């Protein structure tokens, strides 16, 4: 590993530990790392978006299809977000992007996510699919607010509530798994990717100094 690569790994380890230090309390190192992360991510994203736009534009311009330059003009109009007087110009690209997005989503989404899902839900082939069908129907009735839930409607909506609670429980379990995977990834990086592990004793010493200073502040 070259000296530069080692520096990069040390920097990444330092950033990781600085961000994790939030678990103790908000502090200067956390804020530095947070702002550095946000700045880097936004700059990286902006550069790659510009690169992708140029890549898509280039073949059309080479063919002499200059109408595609309109997209550049629309892109520039976004910058009028910062100009109070000409703010209305910002609305044109926003409207076009939103309208295109909604058009594409509706055209495809209604079939896949509504019609097909409704058909699949009613296809009861085994116990699992029967449970899904019952869960979906009862779950929908839980949110049915046109009539006061009485009698059978109340029973159906309370079954729906049980299904919803089970779904939320499963969702929380999956989220725990997702978050644990993240910390596993970071701990592995800190432990097994030298020289990242050199930052661990540094972080522990700094944390202990911080805790000691907090303790002294609390003393009368």
């Amino acid at each position, binding site marked *: 590993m070259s000296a530069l690569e080692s520096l990069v790994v040390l920097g990444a380890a330092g950033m990781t530990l600085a961000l994790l230090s939030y678990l103790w309390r908000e502090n200067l190192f956390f804020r530095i790392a947070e702002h550095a992360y946000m700045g880097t991510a936004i700059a990286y994203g902006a550069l790659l978006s510009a690169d*992708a736009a140029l890549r898509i534009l280039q073949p059309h311009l080479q063919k002499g299809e200059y109408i595609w330059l309109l997209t550049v003009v629309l892109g520039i109009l976004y910058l009028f977000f910062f100009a109070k007087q000409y703010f209305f110009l910002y609305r044109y690209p926003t409207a076009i992007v939103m309208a295109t997005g909604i058009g594409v989503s509706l055209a495809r989404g209604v079939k896949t996510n509504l019609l097909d899902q409704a058909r699949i839900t009613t296809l009861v082939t085994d116990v699992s699919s029967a449970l899904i069908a019952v869960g979906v129907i009862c779950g929908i009735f839980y949110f049915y607010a046109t009539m006061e839930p009485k009698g059978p409607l109340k029973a159906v909506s309370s079954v729906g509530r049980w299904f919803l609670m089970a779904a939320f429980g499963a969702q929380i379990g999956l989220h725990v798994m997702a978050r644990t995977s*993240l910390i596993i990834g970071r701990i592995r990086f800190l432990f097994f990717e030298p020289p990242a592990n050199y930052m661990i004793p540094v972080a522990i010493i700094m944390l202990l100094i911080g805790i000691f200073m907090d303790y002294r502040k609390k003393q009368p």
Partner: protein
Amino acid sequence: MKGGGWAVQQSENKKTLLQKLQEIDPKWIYLIQLIVISYPLLYPLGLPLGTISSETRGLYGAIDALPEGSIVFHAVCMGPAAAAECQPSLEAILKHDLEKGHKLIFYTDQAPGIPYIEQAMQNVLGASKDHPDYGKLYVNIGYIPQTYTGFSAFAADLFFTGSDVYGNDLRSMEFFKDLPTKTASDFDFGITYGSGNFQWIITYLSDPWGVTCGGGIAAGIAAEAYPFYPQKTPGFLVGLRGGAEYEVLIGKPGYAAAGMDAQSLAHLSIIIMVLIGNVAFLLSKMQGGMQKT
């Protein structure tokens, strides 16, 4: 002032164990979690993985059944937040693709996705743009902004971007020469990775272009994928566990399988803490009720 402090101190001392259990400082829970996760990473326990899920088996079976030369589309739609979970799945599936002799095409709808494609190609294929078969068997389209509109344009014309992520002309690549339509319908299989959503690949690739699709998705969005299984997708990998299961199925336990000890212990400790908190809450409620009567 001093008297008030003394009174608070006295009431703190009078707190029962049940009350203290419900008011543990979260910092102690973080510390316990840190120890519980770190220990098995340093000293692996070799806990059994359990039964491999039908979703993982389904995806494995579908990819395994693809003949040599099939084109597998990999949509690496993940950033740092999902990479810890999904990168092992991506690499495990790539190893399987490599064994079966599939052609691979990579795409991402997120700018941070590019380094993860590079990393996977380096780790599994040994090289990315410098690979001798790059342009013949493997192509990295790179980042196309806007998932729905951007991908729809790409699906309708595979040469939509003109060049790959490294600036090579797509039309001159051997990869695309024998493709009959030069649209997404030429793909034999599609897989999405990440925490964005799963339904987009069914909505924009599977349904309109007739391509069978699966996923290596973050656990947090697994609930979105289940409604499509098994009618619209043969299977998908859920989080790190899905990656570990796939690694076992291809006979190459790796990064994901090694992390499952930590994953299991972390879950166990959380379950124990939830139980302790709830039992303490119920008991203190019962005690409060008894004192009132």
